[in-house]
């Protein structure tokens, strides 16, 4: 975790021009225990003990040769908790809440298990690009391995029982973080959001539930978890909905470039110039400019590697920045200065590398 960038958030994958990351998350509760809202701290400790034993027993068998790391959040330093949330491995709520809770994390940081979040277990697989069916397989492989060592709460009619009754059934949440600058320029974002709602998808911001969209990044996820098999839900989301969203954004980009080429070039190159020259930079401002540059890169306007932009998008976040240079923690001004200096150097290096 102390490395300044994570696997999923700073890599690229299939359809990375539009799809930043794919994630599958399974909600499970261990039978015989109350849900988290009615679980006292000793009970939560006991749940952690049961999960940890299951993780230790099961995860050596599958492709986590080194097992999973176990991070107890209630005793972890605040910076580590924020690092995890900046990497989208834990929700902000989970990073900041109270009580015994843990994260089991594979060494490549693709697989993880939040323990004692809203449900006892949130088993997840997160990876770069459009790879939902890989994420689906990996999340279920982990879930299966755990199911061999522990019993999940299950109801003959409602399926896997979850603390929030609207997640019952398969207890599966598939999501894709999309970059939609084309739709934004063509003023189509609201229409996409409305269409998504009709398809029973949730549309969220950069940091999931309750967060704002920064830099045209939107997270789409399924809300239906009952009345269909897991495979059918995957097929609908990954086979039908996601390709349409990707296609729609690509068309919007082509149309935007055909109609507003100089305006778009102006925005992209100004963002590059801004980040190449700034001496003080906030995380939000950096994210916005990096998002515009990302658009320029995938449209072939800027000769910079997409991985550089992806890595910087993560590294400009406050906790990641402090890994690069702890002086950023001294004051707000220091934070801005360190960020501006780092981004300037990296862009200079990134541009030279590709020449």
């Amino acid at each position, binding site marked *: 975790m102390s490395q300044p960038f994570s696997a999923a958030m700073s890599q690229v994958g299939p359809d990375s021009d539009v799809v930043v990351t794919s994630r599958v998350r399974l909600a499970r509760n261990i039978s015989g225990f109350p849900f988290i809202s009615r679980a006292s701290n000793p009970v939560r400790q006991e749940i952690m003990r049961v999960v940890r034993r299951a993780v230790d027993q099961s995860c050596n068998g599958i492709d986590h040769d080194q097992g999973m790391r176990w991070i107890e959040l209630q005793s972890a330093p605040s910076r580590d908790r924020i690092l995890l949330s900046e990497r989208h491995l834990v929700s902000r709520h989970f990073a900041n809440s109270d009580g015994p809770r843990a994260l089991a994390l594979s060494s490549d940081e693709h697989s993880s298990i939040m323990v004692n979040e809203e449900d006892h277990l949130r088993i997840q697989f997160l990876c770069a690009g459009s790879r939902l069916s890989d994420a689906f397989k990996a999340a279920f492989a982990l879930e299966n391995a755990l199911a061999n060592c522990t019993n999940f709460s299950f109801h003959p009619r409602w399926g896997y029982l979850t603390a929030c009754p609207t997640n019952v059934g398969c207890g599966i949440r598939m999501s894709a973080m999309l970059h939609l600058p084309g739709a934004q320029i063509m003023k189509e974002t609201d229409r996409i959001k409305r269409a998504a709602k009709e398809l029973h998808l949730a549309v969220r911001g950069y940091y999931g539930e309750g967060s704002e969209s920064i830099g045209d990044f939107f997270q789409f996820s399924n809300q239906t978890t009952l009345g269909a*098999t897991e495979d059918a839900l995957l097929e609908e989301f990954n086979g039908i909905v996601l390709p349409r969203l990707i296609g729609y954004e690509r068309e919007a980009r082509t149309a935007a470039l055909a109609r507003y080429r100089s305006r778009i070039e102006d925005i992209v190159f100004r963002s590059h110039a801004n980040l190449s020259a700034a001496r003080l930079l906030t995380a939000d401002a950096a994210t916005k400019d990096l998002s515009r540059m990302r658009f320029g890169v995938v449209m072939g306007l800027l000769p910079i590697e997409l991985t550089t932009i992806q890595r910087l998008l993560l590294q400009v976040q406050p906790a990641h920045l402090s890994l690069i240079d702890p002086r950023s923690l001294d004051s707000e001004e220091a934070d801005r200065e360190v960020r501006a200096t780092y981004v300037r150097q990296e862009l200079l290096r990134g541009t030279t590398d590709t020449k």
Partner: protein
Amino acid sequence: MNCDHCDKPAVVHEIVIKGGDSKEVHLCSDHAIAAGYPLPVEQPLADIFPKLGSVAKVEAAKSKERSAKCAACGLTFTVFRKSATLGCPACYDAFMPMIEKVIESAQDGATHHLGRSPVGGAEIERVQNLRVKMMRDLEAAIAAEQYERAAKLRDELKALDSPSP
């Protein structure tokens, strides 16, 4: 008030003014018809009473909902309504009718889990029991003329029988 001519309750009330004198007239339906008065429409009253009855029923059901409590974890329905989070697996049965509504409306009308289940051995029996229950629900939905629910159940039964890929 009774009829001026008999002991039946009066349905027509009039003030008759004749040559500067006013006189109150109260007539039952029979005497009113005999005297040539048009009868007041009684329908509204008949309408209101059954409605009042169902309001009371809804109120009773609501107060029953409010007082519902899970015996296993002690969560009350009122607290659940506020937090939208259940206390334990037993809450699903404790708050069954209300939870059913919440789930079906959040899940686009879906009524049963069709996906995987934890253990392989009991799986065949589980699917068999589920199928029997769903068929019974389907018959009940058709009998109650809940066609949308019936259609959903029919789709779910079909999905249950199709082999998963």
